[in-house]
């Protein structure tokens, strides 16, 4: 016999993501999920962001790493609560991991949780973590073709950072092509150019995330 199931394969992940959303609502928290390829500057951008953003909001970090806790150690000096998640080879975080990580953060005292996902442009964009926004980072040395090659992330992101713009004179990156592809793929996506080396654009990014957190938290 044929049984029609019509069941969403991601149901179990999505229902745990709903649990995450409940917790975030209960504690009036905003959660941001940063996704990019390995080496495009997630941790560097956080290093540039946490000092300034930490003066406005009380922040907690969930630091996903495949095999080490190096990135978490890089951020320790900010003195913020950090939960390091080692996925032991898995290429993405899922909502079960986030539920456990939330247990280890002082939710009562936080305004915003920033997740640094595992470096990967494909898998992390498939998994709903219960976040308010996915933030995509693409970097100049990766090339201008990433939006066309990995469209889902660029469709799902609420903000796109083009990082390492200080390298534009040295690598073949066609800015026009990148902007055209993003405009076609997700015309409403805000795009902010940054360099974590020179500090260019970092203030614009901090303004965006400040506005986003303010808009998405209930005013008490």
């Amino acid at each position, binding site marked *: *016999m*044929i*049984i*029609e*199931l*019509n*069941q*969403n*394969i*991601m*149901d*179990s*992940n999505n229902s745990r993501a709903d649990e995450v959303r409940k917790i975030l609502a209960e504690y009036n928290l905003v959660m941001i999920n940063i996704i990019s390829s390995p080496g495009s500057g997630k941790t560097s951008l956080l290093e540039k962001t946490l000092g300034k953003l930490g003066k406005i909001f009380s922040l907690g970090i969930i630091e996903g790493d495949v095999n080490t806790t190096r990135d978490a150690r890089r951020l320790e000096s900010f003195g913020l609560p950090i939960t390091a998640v080692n996925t032991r080879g*898995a*290429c*993405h975080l*899922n909502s079960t991991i986030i539920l456990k990580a939330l247990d280890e953060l002082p939710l009562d005292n936080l305004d915003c949780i920033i997740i640094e996902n595992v470096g990967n442009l*494909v*898998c992390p964009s*498939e*998994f709903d973590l219960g976040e308010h926004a996915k933030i995509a980072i693409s970097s100049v040395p990766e090339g201008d073709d990433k*939006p*066309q090659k*990995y*469209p*889902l992330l660029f*469709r799902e992101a609420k903000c796109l950072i083009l990082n390492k713009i200080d390298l534009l004179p040295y690598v073949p990156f066609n800015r026009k092509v990148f902007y055209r*592809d993003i*405009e*076609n*793929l*997700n*015309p*409403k996506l805000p795009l902010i150019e940054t360099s974590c080396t020179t500090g260019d654009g970092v203030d614009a990014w901090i303004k965006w995330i400040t506005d986003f957190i303010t808009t998405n938290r209930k005013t008490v």
Partner: protein
Amino acid sequence: MHEFSIAQNIVEILTQAVEDNRLVNIELITVEAGELRQIVPESLKMAFDALKTEKGSPPAIRNCRLNLAIIPQAVSCSDCGCNFYPEDLCYICPDCGSINTEVKEGNKLIIKSIKGETD
């Protein structure tokens, strides 16, 4: 390789279906994957074949074949109502140029049906 996690979810759902419907054998499972979900068919089949024969998996799914259908995207314009396929990944309405468009198809990942036998 998110296909491995997806295959794990499929096996979990099948395990539940075996129990709910008292199935002794599931011969075929039909999965529909939206084009946007970036599933590599060979990877999903390979992961599913490895997991269905694992120790903890129910014997009823050991010989199950996976039929995967990739569902193309369909986008609809919220302003002029036209439906279109996003050629070259362009989601701007080709008729009226609006950016208020919505993906209606090609975004889901579902188990459509299973073919099995009861005792």
